[in-house]
């Protein structure tokens, strides 16, 4: 089990009821981590609708995570 820092924005923040949390997980990729959190917290957005950022940069869902990484799941953007 490793430690990840998760930040939540927009709809995910609302569904989680938190801005950020630290989780212990055996997930090796962002994709696995989201699946775990979505099940636990009832997130409605599929990964196909999301992007992911690791340590404040866009990343692939399959990129390997390291302990202490900050992960952000990015709901569909709607600026402007």
């Amino acid at each position: 089990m490793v430690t990840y820092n998760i930040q939540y924005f927009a709809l995910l923040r609302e569904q989680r009821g938190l801005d950020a949390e630290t989780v212990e997980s055996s997930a090796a990729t962002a994709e696995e981590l989201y699946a775990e959190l979505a099940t636990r917290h009832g997130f409605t957005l599929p990964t196909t609708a999301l992007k992911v950022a690791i340590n404040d940069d866009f990343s692939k869902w399959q990129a390997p995570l390291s302990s202490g990484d900050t992960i952000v799941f990015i709901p569909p953007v709607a600026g402007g």
Partner: protein
Amino acid sequence: MPNPQTFAISGEDLEIENLKQQLLDSHAGALATFEGWVRNHNEGQAVERLEYSSYPALANKEGQRIIEEAFEKFEIDAAIARHRVGMLEIGGIAVWVGVSAAHRGAAFDACRYIIEEVKGRVPIWKKEYYSSGATDWVNCHQET
């Protein structure tokens, strides 16, 4: 070349005259600008106000990248983009983009490129508050 202030997320009202002044340059002949205002309706629902939020660290980085791309793609002299976050009333200015160039074609093309890319790529979200009392995160209707 773009400077660090070219793109920014702002929690305060945008001061457009001030931004435009920053684009004034005696070399430039053309200024194209885009402003996005809060509309009083969206997809048939009466909108009372809007709340924009962002993921600031990545939004600023991605916004800056977009401006740099505009400099690579088009012959422009200067470009500035600002996106408001927080609660906005009808008629409030949500986004402003200004591009100056020697020729109008490049100014228009770059201005349009920047606003399209900002809307498509920068992590900013919009929550609509309807007259009915309901709210909605725009674009977040897909289900798992």
